[in-house]
């Protein structure tokens, strides 16, 4: 390349565009009103079914000693509540835009492109988070879930937030792979299965055999669901909060580093190869 390299002066960072991206994403989600009913409806049905399963298992004395029948139903209901926001692939726009080439228009704007995807995804998730209000009311009034003390609730909220970030970066990494390969749905499906199984969304991980548990904790999925849920039902005592949330943080940092590297390599591919 000829010509002297200029100093890279970064333009002044303004938060406003990203707040607007999030707001716009919420407005966009609001146009799909039907989603509201299906989300709430499927939540009720799934909690109901899981309650039947756990009740039947407990009636046959197959109960794990750490969790009472009510605690495990609470666990399942809260897991499904979390799923309302956690199961959203908030950065799938990246994959879609790489497929149809419209990612180029995002690079034409004076924005930090990955921040745009973060803001857009967060807006989408925040809109769905509103659904947590009626869903939580249903969980309280119909399924009588346990409500722990404010200290535990606060720890749960923080751990939930950390779990959300783990999920965000995991999704972002998967969507980034669309820079290199057009077909990523198979990989995504496998990751969804792994999350369902090893994340603790469906079955508390403490019910797994010991040898599997070591393996499970070497994967990031437990940091998404299991950690906040076990805090909520009290299996993880306050004395271990620092340790378990520290581990979540380690996952976030690690996945954020991988995300950054993948984004850099991927976007370089676009600016050099033209996508």
């Amino acid at each position, binding site marked *: 390349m000829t*010509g002297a390299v200029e100093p890279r*002066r970064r333009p002044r960072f303004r938060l406003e*565009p990203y707040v607007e991206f999030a707001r*716009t994403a919420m*407005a*966009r989600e609001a146009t799909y009103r039907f989603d509201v009913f299906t989300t709430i409806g499927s939540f009720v049905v799934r909690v109901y079914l899981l309650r039947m399963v756990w009740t039947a298992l407990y009636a046959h004395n197959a109960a794990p000693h750490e969790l009472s029948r009510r605690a495990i139903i609470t666990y399942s209901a809260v897991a499904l509540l979390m799923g309302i926001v956690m199961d959203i692939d908030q950065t799938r726009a990246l994959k879609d835009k790489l497929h149809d080439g419209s990612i180029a228009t995002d690079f*034409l704007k004076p924005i930090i492109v990955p921040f745009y995807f973060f803001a857009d995804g967060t807006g989408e998730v925040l809109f769905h988070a509103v659904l947590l209000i009626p869903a939580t009311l249903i969980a309280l009034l119909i399924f009588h879930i346990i409500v722990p003390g404010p200290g535990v609730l606060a720890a749960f909220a923080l751990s939930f937030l950390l779990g959300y970030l783990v999920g965000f970066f995991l999704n972002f990494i998967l969507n980034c792979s669309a820079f290199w390969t057009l077909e990523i749905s198979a990989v995504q499906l496998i990751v969804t299965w792994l999350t369902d199984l090893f994340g603790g969304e469906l079955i508390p991980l403490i019910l797994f055999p010991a040898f599997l548990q070591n393996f499970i904790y070497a994967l990031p999925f437990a940091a998404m669901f299991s950690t906040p849920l076990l805090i909520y039902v009290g299996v993880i005592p306050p004395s271990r909060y620092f340790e378990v949330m520290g581990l979540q943080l380690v996952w976030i940092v690690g996945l954020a580093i991988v995300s950054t590297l993948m984004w850099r390599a991927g976007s370089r591919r676009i*600016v050099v190869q033209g996508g």
Partner: protein
Amino acid sequence: MAIIEAADLRKVFRRIVRRPGIGGAVRALFSREYEDKIAVDGVNFTLAEGELVGYLGPNGAGKSTTIKILTGILVPTSGSVRVAGIVPYQRRQENAENIGVVFGQRSQLYWDLPLRESFELLRAIYDVPRNRYLENLAHFSAILDLERFLDTPVRQLSLGERMRGDFAAAMLHDPKIVYLDEPTIGLDVVAKEAIREFITRVNRERGTTVILTTHDLADVERLTPRVILIDEGRVIFDGALQRLRTEYGTHRTLVVTFAEAPTNIDVPGTEIESREGLVVRLRFDRRKLSAEAIIRRVMERYPISDVSIIEPDIDTIVRRIYVEGYQHGAVGAPS
């Protein structure tokens, strides 16, 4: 003052060669072969502030690649480029604040939201002061007649309406330069005219520099006094449209309707372009022969019932250059 400078711009893409069949796919897993495709091959041009330039060339000539380099989303293989004093690919974000882009085939508007929401978002992205934003919006609404569908979701707009929205969107932040990539593609006559009017006014009233790529030569005739022709990654012509016309529009066509079918047509100094029944089109070089002389020659040899002369249009000229290639001083000129 030059606002865009491109010197010896080259872009070579490296593509994986895919061999056909399963055997080829398996082989590709182990050893990959690459081939280089030269998209832009030493392009030079300079644009002064406030110019309106047509950037033309056949498909695959390197037009879009050049535009992508100028917008900063593609790094050139070699050569230098400056847009408003900035090397675009080194400072993409800063460059982005200076430019507006319209792609005829790709909307930048938010599909699910009313047009107005997309504008609001762009205001936030480019940090346009509220007053200026409202002023621009009112101004563009008036020229492009946006008022009727400002609150309609973009997905429900017709192509013409959407394009008008895209134009306003690209101009809301008062960019110094706008790149228009086939902006009139697929539009009806009315919409085309509205867009052309908008481009003219933006260029004249705001001094915005405009680069327009198009396949519709009516756009060029209407809008751009200067054209840059590119073919196989090289600039083959850069100059006034008028010069292109005089250098290349050397051949006129005489349309002769014969009174009776002639057995063989032979008029010195002409060649037969086409023949349909009694109507024959004869091409001749206007620098060698006057129309009057040709008509006389035809009338001396054959009984005819009608003649007319067709002047070369820009379409014919450009097609001829694409097919024959450009040589300075025009093809067929006495050397």
